[in-house]
């Protein structure tokens, strides 16, 4: 099976489901868009546990729309999105620059933001939250940077801090929006290796929107191609073709 389009997407994912049990996220005939205008229609997609799926496609195809739809940030215009994450939200990692560097925040402040879902609205992080945040920072190998200012970090480090923030509240699915778009080559490889380690060591699923997709194919044996309003799970020869046409 090299590639499956539209309704076949769910079937493709079901291969993974059999091995990994219930899918972590499931779009059932879902349409996503802005206002009343759909960008993606009739999306049926299951995300099983332990996958590393880059989401690729041309500009404006709807890659980020799909990601936001799965995250629940964009309510479906039709159909539904089911999450099976044990009550936790999916991990979300925006691009590093989206966190405005005018805010004087330390790395610790930023990572601790991932704990707010576990706190009452008037509470502040306690020692348990701090320990969880420090552990998450250790997982991305930035444990010595707790007191550093976020804005003083390189693009790659910022991205890893945001990954650590997502690890504070999500333990099964992490979604990243162009995590390597503003980093140099060594940092890109470092980030991708960290994400692969999350899959191999913690059996987490990783979905990442990629604009430039050169290095990501070293780590992925499957990708989601978003093109002309359709989503294709691409593997094998089709993956090779995509690599040729997009790299």
């Amino acid at each position, binding site marked *: 099976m090299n590639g499956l389009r539209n309704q076949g997407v769910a079937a493709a994912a079901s291969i993974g489901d059999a091995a990994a049990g219930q899918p972590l996220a499931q779009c059932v005939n879902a349409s996503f868009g802005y206002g009343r205008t759909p960008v993606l229609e009739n999306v049926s997609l299951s995300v099983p546990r332990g996958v590393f799926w880059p989401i690729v496609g041309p500009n404006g195809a709807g890659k980020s729309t799909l990601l936001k739809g799965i995250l629940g940030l964009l309510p479906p215009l039709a159909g539904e999105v089911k999450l099976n994450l044990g009550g936790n939200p999916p991990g979300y990692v925006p691009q590093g620059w989206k*966190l405005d560097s005018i805010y004087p925040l330390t790395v610790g402040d930023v990572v601790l933001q991932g704990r707010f879902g576990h706190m009452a609205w008037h509470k502040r992080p306690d020692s348990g939250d701090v320990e969880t945040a420090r552990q998450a920072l250790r997982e991305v190998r930035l444990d010595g940077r707790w007191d550093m200012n976020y804005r003083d970090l390189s693009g790659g480090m910022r991205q890893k801090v945001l990954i650590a923030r997502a690890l504070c509240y999500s333990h099964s699915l992490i979604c990243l929006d162009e995590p390597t778009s503003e980093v140099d080559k060594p940092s890109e490889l470092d980030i991708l290796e960290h994400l692969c380690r999350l899959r191999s060591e913690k059996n987490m699923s990783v979905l990442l929107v990629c604009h430039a997709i050169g290095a990501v194919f070293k780590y992925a044996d499957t990708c989601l191609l978003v093109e002309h309003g359709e989503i294709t799970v691409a593997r094998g020869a089709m993956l090779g073709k995509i690599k040729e046409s997009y790299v």
Partner: protein
Amino acid sequence: MSELAALWKFFAPGLAAGMILAAVCGALGVLVITKRVTFVGMALSEVAACGLAFGLLLLHHVEASMPVFAEAWGGAITMSAAVAATAVAVSILALASGARRISQDGVMGILFALAGAGSILLVSYSSFGLDEVKDLLWGNLLVAKPADLALSAAVLLPALLALIVFLPRIVLVFTDADLARLLGVRTKAWELAFFYALGVVAAVGSKVGGSLLVFAYLVAPSCAGLLLARRMGKAMLISSCIAAACTAAGLYLSVRFDAPASQLVIALLCLSPLAALGISRIGRI
């Protein structure tokens, strides 16, 4: 000595009210600057002044028919008008945030111009004395009354407390609204609450010290605090301290040289970012 004591008794409410206003606006202003909504602070201060002008006009009409009621509730009437005006302005801005064809900045500009013109128009139709008009439009911290001090303490100190308690959550909403929504935080509600609180602070501040002073308190010491500090809390603390120090120095210089108090405080506040820039070059705190 007795002259000095009399002077102190006269100026103490203004000094204390100014200190409270400085501390609260200094801290709140750091969020205004970091959220990049400086113009909101300016527009809300002007709208509050317009609301005060409307309240005073209303009060003069009430005084004619119900002098006892006006005497007892005059302060509440003017304050309510200012708070209501800022609440309406914040609601309009919230509605405008979803507009695609005009920017929120444009709406703020319209509100600012309307409020500025409205204040002048309202006072031109009133029978206010020149001093009353000057105090309304430009403020005078020096002649703040004990009632102004009580109002500042009653409204501004709880606002400061709320800011301290909710700061991490407000920062989350302002820095990453998507994540906040994922974590179940009602981002729109928090943003609205922040701006309504800012409106109330602007209304009280405009009554006590004038709209320009409120705007200067929100902007200038906050820039200095952000230049000097590497943490949000520290930036707010430094900003509040700078604002309070400028207030004390400005009031002293005002008495010493018989100059307008609020304007002297504003001048000192605006010099503080320059001083902070110099200090930050030497070494950050």
